[in-house]
């Protein structure tokens, strides 16, 4: 069976495109500021237009900093087979920095400044929704461009 529209942890954050997954943010038509996630307005005090338009963010970035979440977060975070995981802060250009889980890399390979690309991966399987995915970043070239790594 081919891949249907994937189920994500929350609607409106990420979507699958022919070029691979893309984060959905907004760009202000007035001052050109790029935001993630989507905003209902523009927070730039110097912008009078405040005209947020949906926009894709770059799918490639660099690692700005990171940590390892060593203990299990509260139950609102659902994951199958919990174990400590890496959370990175990824610089995507135009000043946008996004936090996300990192995948396809071991702790001792982490280097601030390394190239990363957006991917999506299943977090858990829900009895009704089936496989539910979140967005992550992985070392560039680690996974196929479609980013649909298992």
């Amino acid at each position: 069976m081919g891949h249907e529209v994937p189920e994500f942890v929350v609607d409106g954050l990420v979507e699958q495109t022919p070029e691979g997954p893309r984060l959905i943010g907004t760009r202000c038509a007035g001052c050109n500021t790029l935001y993630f996630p989507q905003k209902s307005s523009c927070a730039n005090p110097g912008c009078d237009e405040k005209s947020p338009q949906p926009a894709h963010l770059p799918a490639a970035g660099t690692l700005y900093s990171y940590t390892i979440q060593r203990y299990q977060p509260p139950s609102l975070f659902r994951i199958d087979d919990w174990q400590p995981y890496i959370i990175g802060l990824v610089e995507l250009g135009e000043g946008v920095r996004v936090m996300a889980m990192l995948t396809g890399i071991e702790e001792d390979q982490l280097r601030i400044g390394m190239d990363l690309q957006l991917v999506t991966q299943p977090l858990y399987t829900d009895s009704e929704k089936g496989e539910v995915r979140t967005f992550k970043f992985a070392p560039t070239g680690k996974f196929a461009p479609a980013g649909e790594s298992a």
Partner: protein
Amino acid sequence: MRPVYALGAGAHPWGKWPDKPQVQLASEAMDEALADAGLRWSDVQGLAAASSRFEGGMGWGLHANELVQTVAEQGIPCINVGGACAAGAIALQTAYALVSSGQYDVVAAVGAERMPKGFIPRPPGSADDRTDDDYLRWVTMGATNPAYWAIEARRRQHDHGTSDQTLARASTLMRRNASGNRRARYRDPISEDDVLASPMVADPLHLLQICPVSDGASAVILGSEDFVARSGKPGVRVAGCAIGSGQFGDPARRIPTIASTVRDDVSHTSEVTGAVSRAFEMAGVGPEDIDLLEMADNTAWHLLAWPELFGFYEPGKGDWMLEQGKLSIDGDLALNPSGGFLSFGEATTAQALLQVSEVLWQLRGQAEGHQVPDAKVGMTAVLGLGANGGSVILTR
């Protein structure tokens, strides 16, 4: 605008107090502050309270009303302010404005909190969709608060070469300071090895480098010059008192957002640096004049980074200052002589008022067991959810 004085302060010891409701903690802190100021409840002309989301306040954050209805119903204005972990600073700013304007002569600010066990639950009414930052950080990646601070700490290690050992030393300094402070919850000295041997929470931060949560309450009474003599203690002036919110483009990894748009020319933790700058300006003093700084040390990283952000010394120098003992109680800048959040645990809405209380006692020479020698000028700095910052400068 007329001069405003800190007339008295009180603080219930920090800890876990399951048998005392929040309003009782508040009442005891107020009683101590009144005694410290040489005043009675009937002298208090207004009350500003930090609103808690956890307990009391009739469910509407009406903590000032609740307190006066419990201990002294006398028709005074009750003002209840939100500001999360900075709410105490906003209450104090409110009291300051009421006195400096000349409208009232004696106004108290109070904050009291009993923290829930375990993870702080999401507030009622929060949307479970992409418009709610707190929801997003949990469902997309399970990013706990320590993960945010750890990302800052890791970046500092990259930028300035801060060692794990130095980050550990920051925690040992807080415990050493707290060892003589009867109000602190954790007073046993710890070694750097103890810190590094405690469980890793979010690399590079260990358990003993992250503030726990506590129950506590604090009150500060402000007033005009006419009331200073009542206490029989040296007069201490509120020379600077400022609050602020964040700036667009702030590079801080702000809890609970999952992303930000950063601008190069904007200060890190701008809600606090903005308040600090305004407090300096009001008081007509600079970092070189400050004898002690009581700041929100949610983690060991904050102790290294914040004084740099406030302009006390250049970025990266905090490590050297700590190593050289210059941040100790008898050093150039006594950093959290109380022992800080790391030794008290955070009782969110009470914390900023505890900081001001500590500075007042230090300037009067009342900080038994942890007194900064000949302290004349002290400063506080605090941060709260929603990008709330507050800073106070007291002088004698």
